[in-house]
């Protein structure tokens, strides 16, 4: 298995791509918006009344919620991640978790973490990409409100999840 890039190198290369994105599209890289749009489209397919939902309706008023810049970008993220993992021989079906931690519990917390984070990204108008990275790179005050709240909470909550991440290794 190939080694990962040095974090500073990763950051600098990422910084150049993010800059190029701003220069071309006039907006930065994101992720959570694509999940929100996918959920809106799914909700609409199952129950068309979501077209008039106070939140999801914003995504659905121009037709398909998925016909949007951020969705295309996140499809790219998947492709790029796959290419890199494939070239490095890192594609495997596995679960990351702490030493001796049960797979079932790990998957439960993963689901719940995602569930809670969804609304969090809607309130914060973005996630670690679209809010923290993009905002901080464009001198936004909001990015730091978000980041300090997020990482501050993570550090305080971390001891409660110590077993999940104890001596955590890749794959099981």
């Amino acid at each position, binding site marked *: 298995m190939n080694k990962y890039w040095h*974090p*500073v190198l*990763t*950051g600098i290369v*990422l*910084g*150049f791509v*993010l*800059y190029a994105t701003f*220069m*071309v*599209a006039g*907006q930065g*890289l*994101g992720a*959570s918006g694509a*999940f929100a749009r*996918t*959920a809106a489209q799914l*909700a609409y397919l199952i129950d068309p009344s979501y077209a008039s939902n*106070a939140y*999801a309706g914003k995504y659905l008023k121009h037709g398909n919620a998925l016909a949007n810049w951020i969705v295309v*970008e*996140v499809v*790219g*993220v998947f492709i*790029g*991640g796959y290419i*890199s993992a494939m070239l*490095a021989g890192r594609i495997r*079906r596995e*679960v*990351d978790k702490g030493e001796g931690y049960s797979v079932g519990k790990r998957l439960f*917390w*993963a*689901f719940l*973490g*995602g*569930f809670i*984070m*969804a*609304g*969090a*990204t*809607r309130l*914060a*108008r973005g*996630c*670690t990409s679209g809010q923290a*990275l*993009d*905002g901080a790179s*464009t*001198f*936004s005050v*909001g990015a730091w*409100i978000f980041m300090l709240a997020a990482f501050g909470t*993570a550090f305080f909550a971390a001891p409660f999840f110590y077993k999940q*991440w104890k001596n*955590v290794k890749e794959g099981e």
Partner: protein
Amino acid sequence: MLYPLYTNGLISDGLNFFFALLFGIGFGFILERGGFGSSAHIAPIFYFRDLRVAQTMVSAIMTTATLMIISVYEGWVNFDAVYIPPVYVWPYLVGGILFGLGMVMGGWCPGTSVVGMARGKVDAFMFALGLLSGMWFYFDIYDKIENFANSGALGRFTFAQLFHTDLYVAFFITVVIVVGLMTFMRTMKAIRDQKGEE
């Protein structure tokens, strides 16, 4: 001012979508190369075991912010046309707190979970399912929290607006925050290393 190309009407919708795919591929590739396709690589930051996640974020912010301020100075970019998420103070604070909780529970954020899924991580897949369900739940409760979700609105709000100054000072403040945070994180790691837990 040539940039941003799309906002200035210099490239078509189709070409903008093509670049979205291209930059997305670059983003995903880089995240995977940096180890962000594994929550085992991400979670140690919560315990200050290592600072890789912070180092990556800080280097990315510094790189983009520096290139951005040069572009402003040289007059290459119309900064007013660059999209910055509008600030809503209270929702950002509460959203940030919930986000932090979700990170420790889940071990992923939305972007990294996409890379995790591409690698076959089952926990990333569960996290993404949680995200989709949570979004749906948010749609259902939105009419009850709409007022709060839009409270403390400041609009497009950079440090230049906060301190009634220009973008160069805003850039400088960003650098100071980044250096301060990195110093704090290094101190925390040093304390942890000294205690030698685990």
